[in-house]
């Protein structure tokens, strides 16, 4: 029975895998992605980017000559499927590292990957995953959500509230700026930075209005906007992915809310401009890498491989998410190279390799990454952008560590 199953599986795999790969020297990498679930609007582009980046790694010498073998599965943003897929990575595919996706499942799997000692590099930038004491095998490739949120609020405060003529009278009267948060309360990724954001609002002297629940797939946000209209917010924080953020911004524009918008990094991409149209003008947001096609080291390779590996996908449909996927894969590949050179390409060895990163960057506009054995936060520098004329222009890079060094080291760590 078992042999028959194995033979069938082998036959199926043999038919599926193109011939010519070096089967012997292979390093296995697992990847969990959302291609059909509520975050699939950003997830699909990431999956394409991951495949292209792995192809690039293999074309440029692999991991010290060994081929990188990718196992990419869709789990639909459902945590139970994430867990069964992870078990499959661990027991069948026998991967040495995992590229993760959503906050909920990454945080849920964190104790398990710690016990199994398999490094988990996720697209979830939840701050909890950066505390090496509680999550020693979890890594991120960009600045964490809470730091991003703090930086975005700081940038708006400095550049808009303190300088814009719209608010001159308000400032003169000593009014406090007002902010409300629009996010999906029940989704861990969206609610991750809220506490930090509210603390930061208190620090900067904001008045915080009632949180509004906007589901990830929301198409209609009018009642939430009408609910905060009496509060007359100056600023709205958007914690969801692009689809619902676009709906919220369009409805805010249609109902005349008159507030500025700051958007988290997973809601801020080229699709937002396309979906929200004119309403997206002036919206500020966070980007952890450069945008697709922007001038940055290695961006030409990203574009080249996008055209080569996935020619069927039109170039104007590619987004910053592809670049983010490249950043993730390149970081994992670099750690694998270091571990392999040290002769320890195992789970714990890979973790140690990650923790040797000092100011390393894959290019692509990613601020230099430094990881230590206690602190898995990559950097304290967050790039903030603004949409002008349908294009993204950089406002500034906010360095949280420089401005609030003691809080960065101690209080803000891990939440």
């Amino acid at each position, binding site marked *: 029975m078992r042999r028959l199953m194995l033979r069938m599986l082998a036959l199926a795999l043999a038919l599926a895998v193109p011939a010519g790969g070096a089967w012997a020297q292979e390093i296995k990498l697992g990847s969990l992605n959302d291609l059909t679930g509520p975050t*699939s609007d950003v997830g699909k582009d990431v999956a394409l980017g991951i495949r292209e980046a792995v192809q690039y790694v293999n074309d440029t010498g692999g991991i010290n000559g060994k081929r990188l073998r990718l196992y990419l599965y869709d789990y639909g943003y459902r945590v139970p499927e994430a867990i069964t897929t992870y078990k499959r990575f661990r027991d069948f595919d026998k991967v040495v590292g995992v590229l993760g996706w959503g906050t909920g499942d990454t945080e849920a799997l964190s104790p398990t990957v710690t016990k199994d000692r398999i490094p988990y590099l996720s697209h979830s930038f939840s701050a909890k995953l950066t505390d090496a004491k509680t999550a020693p095998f979890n890594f991120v490739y960009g600045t964490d959500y809470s730091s991003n949120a703090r930086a975005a609020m700081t940038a708006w405060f400095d550049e808009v509230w303190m300088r814009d003529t719209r608010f001159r009278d308000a400032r003169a009267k000593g009014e406090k700026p007002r902010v409300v948060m629009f996010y999906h309360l029940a989704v861990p990724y969206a609610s991750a930075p809220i506490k930090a954001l509210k603390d930061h609002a208190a620090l900067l002297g904001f008045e915080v209005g009632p949180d509004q629940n906007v589901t990830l797939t929301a*198409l209609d946000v*009018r009642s939430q906007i*009408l*609910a905060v209209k009496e509060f007359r917010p100056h600023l709205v924080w958007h914690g969801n992915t692009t*689809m619902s953020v676009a*709906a919220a911004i369009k*409805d805010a524009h249609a109902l005349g809310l008159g507030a500025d918008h700051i958007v988290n990094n997973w809601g801020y991409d080229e699709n937002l401009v396309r979906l929200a149209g004119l309403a997206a003008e002036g919206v500020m947001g966070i980007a952890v890498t450069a945008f697709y096609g922007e001038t940055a080291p290695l961006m030409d390779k990203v574009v080249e491989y996008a055209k080569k590996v996935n020619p069927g996908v039109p170039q104007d449909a590619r987004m910053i998410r592809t670049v983010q996927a490249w950043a993730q894969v390149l970081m994992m590949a670099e750690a694998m190279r270091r571990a392999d050179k040290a002769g320890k390409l195992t789970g714990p060895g890979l973790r140690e390799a990650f923790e040797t990163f000092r100011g390393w960057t894959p290019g692509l506009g990613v601020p230099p990454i430094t990881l230590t054995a206690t602190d898995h936060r990559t950097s304290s520098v967050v790039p903030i952008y603004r949409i002008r004329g349908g294009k993204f222009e950089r406002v500034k890079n906010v360095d949280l560590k420089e401005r609030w060094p003691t809080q960065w080291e101690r209080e803000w760590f891990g939440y």
Partner: protein
Amino acid sequence: MPVFVELVLSGILVGSIYALVALGWTLIYKCSGVLNLAMGELTLVGAYVCLTYYQWGFPFPVALAAMLVTGFVLGLVTERLFLRRMIGEPILAVIMITAGLSFFFRAVVGFVWGTDTVVFDPPVFPREPLSLFGMVFAQVYLWSFVAALVLLAAFAWFFTRSRWGLSMQATADDEMAALSLGVSAKWVYALAWAIAFMAAGVGGTLLGNINGLNISVGYLGLLVLPAVVLGGLNSVPGAIVGGIAIGVLQNLSDVYIGPLTLGGVKEIAPFVFMIAVLLVRPYGLWGWVKIERV
């Protein structure tokens, strides 16, 4: 206070779209006694079909007309293939066939069109908001309301004046008598499904114009059920009133009850309301009262 009025008004505007879909549901129930759990998916299919026609370059009215024709054909085919044999079967089987169909349609839509939000591009209705009496409305809501009213009037004319409409009413009232008078019950059922597809498709298209379409529009179908329970299962005016009431209820509950809870009121308020109605007056406002006390 103005917020309250704005909420009620925008609730009525969107509720008219729910009313369209509820109308389709009631039609199927009245004519053939089938409780359709797939209404949301019919909405989805119709909306995506119209969007596809629009993306192929046809002007919007042509795309809408093409969608109506497609919906009509799909309704006839669905009824013929899947529901013809279920006439007379126990209620659970019939409901589960429609539930199975809902899985199937949603899967087809998800497979063919994916899960991303898609918008009608270029926008069909102008984007700038209108200001009326100090309140701001997006133009698309007003146009949807107008379109929904036009369609409701068209349906009303169809049912009271045209031959097929009268046949459908006759079948719904007393099937035996209608059959004995020469009405073809098979065609009436098929027509009921076809009209339901069309009504749901128009509803979905109007919804899609507001903020875009994605697969979550399919959950609209479940919202239709509180609407018809409120109005009475086999009453057409009840369906309309129920749809509008649910639209208003969603808005009001989100703004006034939402802050008291930790979120998520908007989705379940219609269902809580429905349970309350079921306990107090299960037959709804206009439904036929069947007394069965055990």
